[in-house]
């Protein structure tokens, strides 16, 4: 009897384990999605460079997060600020889940945060500089703010809700992207007499395939963050999260299409693709805390906000973000996190919870933003002053592929 009971609880753990591992696979596949979106929305002459950056984000990130990143994020809490460092984390033990399963799941999340930046800084960043950035964000910047919310740090104490990482993952990437792109300056030819010019991506089929892959991957990202699947409550929870995720994405796509139709007279593919992502980023924080209806609304709001954010960053801030990463991940990530305070079934403003949760959400959003802006400014500034952040005008014009990598991606004859 006791034995059977142990068997059953081990079995429950096994179910949780395969659920999280499968979610890990789905999130890992998002790397391909990001690579495709970024390569599709930029020019052919820089395609090898973008692919290398995406590949290295994941490769270096996997090694770095294993090395110390994971333990900084999830190690025993030190003053609410960071975790105790353990080198090369990975005991073959079970603690709710196999420890290594947790390591893997968190690794693919960390790589997501890192890879967001690559799109915003595309087509003009030195490859070596990018590698340094990628290493530092995975080793330090992301794990520390991640610890605050997910690792038992001070934000989690406050009751900050960010279920799957609108802020912890996406905004972190988005704000780092903002700082990186701002310090880099716009691509040659992006602004002529202060007027933004369109530099269309070279292959939107790749971009669209990337968005489909990302949408798929999000079914690992959000429902996987439940970190469990066994038992009635978990089953209902992951199923609910699955649906909120999907409805928000759908609403984001539809909303941004409509807005683009109204503002630019035609339903724009490039906007709509970003709109689906905006909905996904927006719902990530609240996917477990809001109803299906609220999820659709959050998605729609994110899709609308996206369009205006793209315009604002491009025309007012004059920051050149070739793939819209700052708007999609930074702005919609922050917005989605705040909206949890509005729509949460328990404690949300609209559900009679008052402003308390919204206040906490704001603290979480802005403290994380502050951390990332400060540290990534220091990082990029240091890189700029030492190895250099930006390629020469000549190399940028002719394309990074040939000068940085000695290869071109498309070849005939």
């Amino acid at each position: 009897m006791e034995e059977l009971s142990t068997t059953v609880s081990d079995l429950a753990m096994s179910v949780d384990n395969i659920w999280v591992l499968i979610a890990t696979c789905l999130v890992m596949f998002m790397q391909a999605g990001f690579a495709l979106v970024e390569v599709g929305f930029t020019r052919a002459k820089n395609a090898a460079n973008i692919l290398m950056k995406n590949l290295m984000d994941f490769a270096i990130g996997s090694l770095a997060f294993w090395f110390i990143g994971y333990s900084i994020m999830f190690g025993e809490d030190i003053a609410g600020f960071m975790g105790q460092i353990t080198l090369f984390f990975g005991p073959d033990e079970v603690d709710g889940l196999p420890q290594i399963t947790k390591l893997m799941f968190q690794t693919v999340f960390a790589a997501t945060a890192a890879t967001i930046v690559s799109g915003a800084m595309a087509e003009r960043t030195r490859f070596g500089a990018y590698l340094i950035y990628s290493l530092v964000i995975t080793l330090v910047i992301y794990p520390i703010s991640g610890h605050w919310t997910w690792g038992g740090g001070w934000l989690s104490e406050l009751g900050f809700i960010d279920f799957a990482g609108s802020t912890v993952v996406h905004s972190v990437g988005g704000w780092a992207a903002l700082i990186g792109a701002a310090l880099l300056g716009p691509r040659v030819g992006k602004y002529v007499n202060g007027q933004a010019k369109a530099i269309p991506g070279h292959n939107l089929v790749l971009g669209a395939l990337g968005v489909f892959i990302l949408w798929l991957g999000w079914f690992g990202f959000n429902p996987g963050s439940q970190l469990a699947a066994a038992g009635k409550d978990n089953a209902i929870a992951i199923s609910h999260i699955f649906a909120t995720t999907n409805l928000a994405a759908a609403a984001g796509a539809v909303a941004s299409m409509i807005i683009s139709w109204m503002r630019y007279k035609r339903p724009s593919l490039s906007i709509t693709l970003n709109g689906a992502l905006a909905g996904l980023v927006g719902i990530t924080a609240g996917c477990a805390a809001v109803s299906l209806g609220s999820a659709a609304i959050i998605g729609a709001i994110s899709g609308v906000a996206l369009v205006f954010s793209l315009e604002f960053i491009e025309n007012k801030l004059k920051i050149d973000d070739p793939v819209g990463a700052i708007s999609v991940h930074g702005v919609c990530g922050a917005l989605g996190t705040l909206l949890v305070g509005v729509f949460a079934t328990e404690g949300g403003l609209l559900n009679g919870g008052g402003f308390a949760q919204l206040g906490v959400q704001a603290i979480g959003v802005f403290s994380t933003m502050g951390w990332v802006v400060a540290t990534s400014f220091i990082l990029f500034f240091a890189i700029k002053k030492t190895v250099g952040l930006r390629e020469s005008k000549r190399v940028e014009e002719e394309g990074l592929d040939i000068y940085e990598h000695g290869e071109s991606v498309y070849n005939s004859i």
Partner: protein
Amino acid sequence: MKRVEAIIRKTKFTEMQAALHEAGIDFMSYWEVRGVGKAVEERSYRGIVYDTSIIERIMVTFYCQDQFLDPAIKAILSSAKTGEIGDGKIFVSDVERAIKIRNGEEGTDALN
């Protein structure tokens, strides 16, 4: 011997090829070009709306004997025209020599 270069709409190629065939022109080479001209179109990309006069066209080139020239031009005019801005142009210039690579034949024999 003349070289005729016609810049036409992509969609008119098949019709033009048929019309040229009627006019005795069976050999030609073509490729895609972008043209800057009067035809202006509106585009938008990720929130930037812009006008462009850069449109896709096909450049068709063929080399023919002088007596085929006028029928060929007529054939193009009748088949590639829509009457709307953007129909394109025909340019004629002189060619001195033609050689067929397969057998080294020169002159008008080399044209087909």
